[in-house]
């Protein structure tokens, strides 16, 4: 019983604090306190997340599962960046050491001029930007292969997509100066109407769910156990 009732009770209390601070000045301090707790809990959950990634990948390596080499690379990355960004700065601060350097780069810290920053700029940034950049190629390939106008709705989507794609870039105006105007109309009328409907619908759904949590009726957030 306690496994369900206590979390429901806690969610209700926290929820009422959040609502209460909008209406009662005396509730604001409580609301602020709860939000600060939320920030701390979220930060702690990141540590938990990293620990979980390490555990899962250690298991993968130890069992020599498929692609275990990638898991090892991931663990090495976590170990190196964690050591440079977290362990060394703490040790450095504890021993009040001077400038710890390796190959001209600071060893303790994450700001510019450190080895951590160098690895971030020379490894993480290009890899991450490349992953995002590859999307252009896959979108082009998918557009050619999968974007088939089989129904009137698909035709409407295709025409709107082509107009917006061409109208959002300068070449659209060169082709025909009406394309940017059509693009603006699509964005400001049909797109806006649909997005606003979705937003208002989601907000009403959020209010209803929130109210159910505040009243202790909604229990799905506890999971199925």
């Amino acid at each position, binding site marked *: 019983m306690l496994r369900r009732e206590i979390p429901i009770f806690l969610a209700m209390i926290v929820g009422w604090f959040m609502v209460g601070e909008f209406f009662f000045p005396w509730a604001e301090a409580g609301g602020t306190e709860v939000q600060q707790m939320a920030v701390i809990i979220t930060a702690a959950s990141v540590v938990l997340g990293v620990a979980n990634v390490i555990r899962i990948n250690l298991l993968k390596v130890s069992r020599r599962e498929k692609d275990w080499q990638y898991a090892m690379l991931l663990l090495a990355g976590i170990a190196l960046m964690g050591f440079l960004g977290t362990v060394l700065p703490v040790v450095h601060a504890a021993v009040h050491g001077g400038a710890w350097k390796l190959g001209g780069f600071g060893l303790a810290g994450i700001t510019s001029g450190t080895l951590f920053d160098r690895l*971030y700029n020379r490894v993480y940034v290009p890899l991450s930007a490349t992953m995002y*950049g590859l999307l252009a190629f896959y979108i082009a390939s998918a557009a050619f292969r999968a974007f088939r106008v089989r129904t009137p709705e698909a035709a409407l989507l295709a025409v709107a997509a*082509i107009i917006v794609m061409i109208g959002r870039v300068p070449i659209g105006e060169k082709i025909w100066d009406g394309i940017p105007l059509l693009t603006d109309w699509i964005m400001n009328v049909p797109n806006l109407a649909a997005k606003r409907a979705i937003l208002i619908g989601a907000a009403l759904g959020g209010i209803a769910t929130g109210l159910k949590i505040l009243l202790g009726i909604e229990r799905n957030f506890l999971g199925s156990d």
Partner: protein
Amino acid sequence: MSLTKRIEALDRRWIFLLMLLAMSFPLIVHITLPLRVTPEGRGFYESIEKLQSGDIVYLASDYDPGGKAELDPMLLAALDHLFRKNVKIVGATLWPAGSPLLERAYNAVAPKYNKTYGVDYVHLGFKEGKENVMVQLGKSIREVFPTDYYGTKLDSLPLMHSGLNGTPIDKLNDTKLLVNISIGYPGTREWVQQVRSRFNLPMVSGCAAVSAPEYYPYVQSGQLAGLLGGLAGAAEYEQMIDRPGWGVTGMAAQSLAHVTIALLIVLGNVMYFWNRRKGASRS
């Protein structure tokens, strides 16, 4: 196999090559195209243009290296515009990998205007907590960020004491404008929902092209005073502040890429219907 069927079943590596050529050609031969200014982009520009010398803005730089190509030009242009107008900046990020990007952008633009760290701009770093952090910043910046990105106490930074009559800067409302450059969650939508309305702080946003349609309702409702969408938004902003950068350079490449994708959609469909009609007439 007929030619039309071979085109329909074209190996995707040929499409990749076509895209590579379409995007690299304008960059190699330096093609520049005239840019159009949208009302949303004009709103972004004018919100910053209206600021007075000495005003302070909160810069929420919420993206990581994945969004660098689209959002770096926006961030650099916004910093250039703000420093040029002698506006002071309190910047931070809610994305774990976002801090070094903001630091790099500061380092790239601040020396051009002889701006001093701690006096003209501050980098608060990263804080986990998403919407909770946003709301807390509206109540007390020091509670969320007791120290800056470099570990310096906020109270020892002159900028954090440069409010009206030397009062401390400690709430988002002590700033004049919220400038958000974001690629996803947490980003523009959350800043509008948690801060714009609750603390009544004027706000502008620069976002990835894919997110821009979602934020149009906020522009029309006046919750966003301006919106820059993707590289096209960055390019029009660069043009407005007369500082051509990667946004303007990249627009020619993006133009050809968009036209290529549009032509591929048309070609794919023409081949599909042609082959289907031929198949039907044979049977």
